[in-house]
């Protein structure tokens, strides 16, 4: 049943994500007008913001998967947490890269001690750490349990870290210094939706893959029984 659900989900999400991303590119480069002070570079914004938000969404899923695993003890929740963590790290990396290419011409630096940036980097370290812990353990019940605990600790600490960094540095002055037109807001909405669909599609694809792997394992088990 789960397999069929995933298949139909990926069949719906795939084309939607593709069309969405094409529309997002159109919206970002053609629909949205040039920005008065920053010129065209500001268009990075349309890919950067949705990517960052989707990283947060993915890490939220790690938390959900971790909690559900500890309560239900079903491996599918552990698989969800693992995949979401990997995808979250990917999206965080992309958000930091696109952000840097925006910061270089606009703030005249690749990187600053801005609270948002610092928290994002801390978050990146936490989930890379999460994946390293997983890599250090044999697949199975113990790995799922320990990873789930760390997944919960990471999410709980993040708001505190963000708050602390904000206290430490103060809010960045550059925020909100942009004239946002209606077209820009529409473009941002479209790209937000598109990137979220893409994130969802890739997640479903990975879940499908995990299911196939379980099927392969079952077949190998059958083979052993027939032979042995």
């Amino acid at each position: 049943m789960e397999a069929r659900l995933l298949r139909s989900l990926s069949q719906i999400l795939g084309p939607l994500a593709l069309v969405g991303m094409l529309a997002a590119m159109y919206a970002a480069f053609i629909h949205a007008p040039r920005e008065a002070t920053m010129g065209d570079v500001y268009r990075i914004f349309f890919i950067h913001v949705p990517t960052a938000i989707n990283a947060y969404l993915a890490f939220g899923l790690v938390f959900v998967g971790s909690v559900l695993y500890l309560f239900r003890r079903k491996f599918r929740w552990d698989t969800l947490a693992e995949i979401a963590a990997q995808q979250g790290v990917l999206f965080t990396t992309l958000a930091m890269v696109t952000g840097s290419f925006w910061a270089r011409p606009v703030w005249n630096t690749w990187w600053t001690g801005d609270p948002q940036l610092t928290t994002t980097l801390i978050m990146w370290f936490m989930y890379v750490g999460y994946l390293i812990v997983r890599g250090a353990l044999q697949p199975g019940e113990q790995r799922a349990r320990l990873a789930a605990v760390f997944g919960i600790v990471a999410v709980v600490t993040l708001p505190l870290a963000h708050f602390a960094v904000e206290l430490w540095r103060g809010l960045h002055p550059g925020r909100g210094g942009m004239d946002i037109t209606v077209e820009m807001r529409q473009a941002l909405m479209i790209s937000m939706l598109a990137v979220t669909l893409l994130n969802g599609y890739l997640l479903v694809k990975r879940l499908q893959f995990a299911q196939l792997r379980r099927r392969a394992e079952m077949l190998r088990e059958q083979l052993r029984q027939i032979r042995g």
Partner: protein
Amino acid sequence: MNNMFYLAAAYGLFWLGIFAYTLKIQRDHRRLEQQIATLEAVVDDLRNEKE
């Protein structure tokens, strides 16, 4: 304007990352499906032999 370089680089790297990830998923998927097909065939053969 040479700012265009940064715009192109940002979008370029974003798409590169997404494409690489998608390709990896697809390749793994295809390989696993082939493996499963072989396994299924072998299992069926062995079953038939036993009968």
